C-alpha cells in the first residue's frame, strides 16, 4: 500500500505550507500547493504506508515550507494569474491553451454589431447578436454583456423619449381639459 496524502506527517507538512504561503497572491498559493501535492503523490507512490523513515526522507528532500516559500521571489511580478490557471487541477482544459476568443464568427459578430448599427440600423445589430450567441468561444456572461451593451442605447432612447413626451402629452391634455369643463358646470 503506497502512502496517501492523508498520512499525518504529510497533512501536517501541507497545512504548515499553507500557513507559510499565506502572503502569496491567492492564485499563486493555490498553484504552489497543488504542485507540492502532485509532487508528494509521485514521490510517495513507491513508499509503503508503514515506512515512516521513507515518508520523512521524502519530506526532507522536499525542503521546509519556509525554504520553498522563500524561493518565491519578487524578481518577476506576479500580476494576474496566467490564463492556464483557469484549468482546474486534475482536469485538462480542452482548447483553453490554444483558445483565442477570435474566430471568423466572432469577428463577423463584432463587425455586425458596430458597423451594422450605421449601415443597417435594426437588422445589423440583431444579426450581430445572433452571431455572438452562436459563438462557442465566448462565455454566456460575455454574451449577456454584448446584448446589454447593444440594447442599452435603445433602452435609453425609450426612457428619454418617455420622460420628454409623457409630460408634454399629459400637460397639453390636462391643460385643455381644465379650460373646457370649467364653464360647463356654471351653465345651469
Amino acid at each position, binding site marked *: 500500500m503506497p502512502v496517501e496524502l492523508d498520512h499525518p506527517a504529510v497533512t501536517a507538512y501541507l497545512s504548515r505550507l499553507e500557513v507559510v504561503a499565506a502572503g502569496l497572491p491567492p492564485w499563486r498559493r493555490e498553484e*504552489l500547493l497543488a504542485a507540492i501535492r502532485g*509532487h508528494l503523490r509521485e514521490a510517495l507512490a513507491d513508499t509503503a504506508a508503514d515506512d515512516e523513515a521513507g515518508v520523512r526522507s521524502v519530506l526532507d528532500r*522536499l525542503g521546509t515550507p519556509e525554504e520553498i516559500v522563500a*524561493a518565491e521571489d519578487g524578481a518577476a511580478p506576479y500580476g494576474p494569474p496566467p490564463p492556464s490557471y483557469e484549468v482546474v487541477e*486534475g*482536469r485538462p482544459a480542452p482548447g483553453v*491553451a490554444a483558445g483565442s476568443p477570435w474566430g471568423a464568427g466572432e469577428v463577423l459578430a463584432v463587425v455586425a454589431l458596430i458597423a451594422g448599427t450605421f449601415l443597417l440600423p435594426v437588422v445589423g445589430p440583431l444579426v450581430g447578436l445572433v452571431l455572438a450567441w452562436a459563438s462557442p468561444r465566448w462565455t454566456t456572461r460575455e454574451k449577456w454583456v454584448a446584448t446589454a451593451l447593444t440594447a442599452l442605447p435603445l433602452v435609453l432612447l425609450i426612457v428619454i423619449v418617455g420622460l420628454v413626451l409623457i409630460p408634454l402629452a399629459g400637460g397639453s391634455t390636462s391643460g385643455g381639459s381644465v379650460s373646457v369643463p370649467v364653464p360647463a358646470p356654471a351653465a345651469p
Partner: protein
Amino acid sequence: MLRMDPGAARQVLPQLRRGALEYCVMALLGRRPSYGFDLVRELSVADGLLTSEGTIYPLLSRLRREGLVTTSWQESDAGPPRRYYALTTDGRLALERFVDDWVRFRDGVDRVLGLTPAPVRAPRNAERSP
C-alpha cells in the same frame, strides 16, 4: 578558528547553484517537455544542484511569468493529469546566451585556478599558447 574556513567555503555553493539551476532546468526542458517531479529526478544526477526539491516549483512559476517556459496539462497513465513545462523561443535564446556566458566564465575561472591543462580548450584560448 579552524572551523571557520570550511564553513565559509561552503557558502559559495548556494550562490553558484542559484545562478545555474534555472538554466539547468531550461536545458532539460529544451530536450523535451517535462513535469515537475520528472525534472527533480533528472536534476538529482547533478549532486547538490537542487537541495530542496520543492523550490523547483517557485522557480518554474517564475520562468513561466517571464515567458521562458509555457505549461499545459497532460493526462498521465497513473493518477491525475500533470502540469507539463516546455521551453519557449525566448527561453531557448536565454539558454543559448547562458551557455556562452557559462563557458567563458568556467574557462576563465578554471584558468585562474590552474585547473585547465592548456590543450583541452585550445581553440578558444589562443592567447595562452606562448
